[in-house]
């Protein structure tokens, strides 16, 4: 997994609430057997006309936001299906960090397993960052995971909380499976005990 340490970049405002994973990446693009290449269909329905041409009004089609690395989003971002294609599509587009009042649980898990940082902040704070994001390319946000802080374009510092284990994995780009396999003997012991107590399981 790619590490996440810090990021300085353009933030795109995406105030819609309850952005679901079908909106992030519609199901018909899930026929791929790869993790890459989904960025071109990120937000497909919002981003393209039926003939495949770009909708000029869509935020990520605007010249100022084509290189956005951060999304400032509405409440309950990533709700809906468990498809990991949603973070894969965001990352493939170039977005490594999403800031919102809250995230759906499964999306949250999926994002961190792909080196993507999700930051949950109170609505008022997200509103401030949304204003920054509206300013486009001249207003970069910087996110520092080690220090757990965001620096606004005017220099104001916003602290954020993150699960310590998630932070550790993101900073070091750790692979969960390798970590868990270090506990192989504990899993084995658990299985042995279970075989005796609940042989049907």
């Amino acid at each position, binding site marked *: 997994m790619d590490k996440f340490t810090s990021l300085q970049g353009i933030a795109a405002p995406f105030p819609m609430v309850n952005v*679901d994973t079908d909106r992030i990446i519609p199901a018909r693009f899930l026929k791929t057997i790869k993790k890459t290449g989904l960025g071109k269909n990120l937000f497909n329905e919002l981003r393209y006309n039926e003939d495949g041409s770009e909708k000029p009004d869509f935020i990520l089609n605007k010249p100022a936001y084509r290189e956005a690395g951060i999304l400032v989003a509405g409440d309950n971002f990533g709700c809906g299906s468990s498809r990991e294609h949603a973070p894969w599509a965001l990352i493939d587009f170039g977005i490594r960090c999403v800031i919102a009042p809250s995230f759906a649980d499964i999306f949250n898990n999926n994002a961190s397993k792909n080196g993507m940082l999700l930051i949950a902040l109170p609505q008022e704070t997200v509103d401030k960052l949304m204003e920054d994001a509206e300013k486009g390319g001249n207003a970069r946000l910087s996110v520092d995971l080690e220090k757990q802080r965001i620096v606004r374009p005017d220099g104001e510092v916003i602290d954020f909380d993150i699960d310590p284990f998630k932070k550790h994995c993101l900073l070091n780009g750790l692979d969960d499976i390798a970590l868990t396999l270090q506990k192989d003997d504990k899993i084995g012991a658990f299985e042995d005990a279970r075989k005796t107590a609940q042989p049907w399981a």
Partner: protein
Amino acid sequence: MAQPKTLFDKIWESHVVDVQEDGTCLLYIDRQIIHEITSAQAFEGLREAGRTVRRPEAQLLVPDHNVPTTDRSLPIENEESRIQIDLLKENAEAFGLPYIELNDIRQGIVHVIGPEQGFTLPGLTMACGDSHTSTHGAFGCLAFGIGTSEVEHVLATQSLIQRPAKNMRVTVDGALPPGVVAKDLALAIIGAIGTAGGTGCVIEYAGKAVEDLSMEGRMTLCNMTIEGGARAGLVAPDRTTFDYVKGRPMAPKGAAWEQAEAYWRTLPSDPGATYDKEVTISAASIEPQVTWGTSPEMVLPISGSVPDPSGEQDGNRKRSLERAIEYMGLSAGQALTDIRVDKVFIGSCTNSRIEDLRTAAAVARGRSVADGVHAMVVPGSGLVKHQAEEEGLDAVFKEAGFDWREPGCSMCIAMNGDMLQPGERSASTSNRNFEGRQGPGGRTHLMSPAMAAAAAVNGHLSDHRELL
């Protein structure tokens, strides 16, 4: 006396392999069901790292999301779909995993076949790379929808890294009125708590109305737990559960059954157990429900009308209501029964089991699908289809002009070519009405199977009780 525990606490605690200092747990996963859409990259990951599957017999593979629901003797036309389905089989063979073929009578939607085969059992933990894995909670089985990285994690380690969830209880007092079913209850609960109402929680459904539900009904209820934002849903196992499970191909037999049942009886929450969040709903006040908008929480009784956003104070909410009304091609104040439909879809892991087909057939019997409406029935599995045919339900549907199909996810997710065209409107028994869910520009109204059948014969959203 020991601290009273909830059903969730009991299952959770009996599966914790390890706890880190920060409280993160390694949770043992007893079973995993795997389908073609969310697994290819997981197997690829195993191969790249040179890893094996820890417990092959604890996995069950089946294609469902992307399979054709038309004649199965023909080759699959869409090349990408075919590659994905073939790859599932190749992965099953390469890693030595139990696999159900597309043409096997046991093939069907992951959340229909798990219970049907007795793979789903009370007190177990289960995972599947699909959010509606919450369905299996109907058995008192702690079941999580997971992403592809986690599918790979379960394959390699038979465990998941998780933090404990909060306990939430939704108690449904009293009895549901005649003609009001589990789907109405599920939708009414989401309407009450909102799509983020259960975030971070496992919801235990309790109360008389829940106890009275059949296993099919409990599965419908737990299925839509994810639409309420919760991690999983649970119903305490009881006689109804045991009767359903007993004799299933993969269920314990003989002495093992006795031992298992005795254990399952210890699972229900202890009296006095406490919950982080409690919601109580009265069953008697629930009417048949339909969604009008683009989120499952945009739901109303069929007697209602499209809401008027002008009364909404919160700016974000107001914009989302306006956008939903526009996308759905409706107008504020319009009666729900005035909404005409183009397509009807009876199927999905929410409502494609035998009981669902029976209630839809009861409405369809002796009537015909309205002119200009295409209505399809997609059974949840080959076994459901077979049973329905034994009962003559296929004939009832076909005589009424419904299209009787092969099992799969079909128009729930619209990957296999069964889909809405832009601007088309469906009455659907599935679980999601997001923009574009059933095809780009498609408009979805969610409801119960009997309500969908009523929409098919009337050509517009209707109260099925008027047809009884």
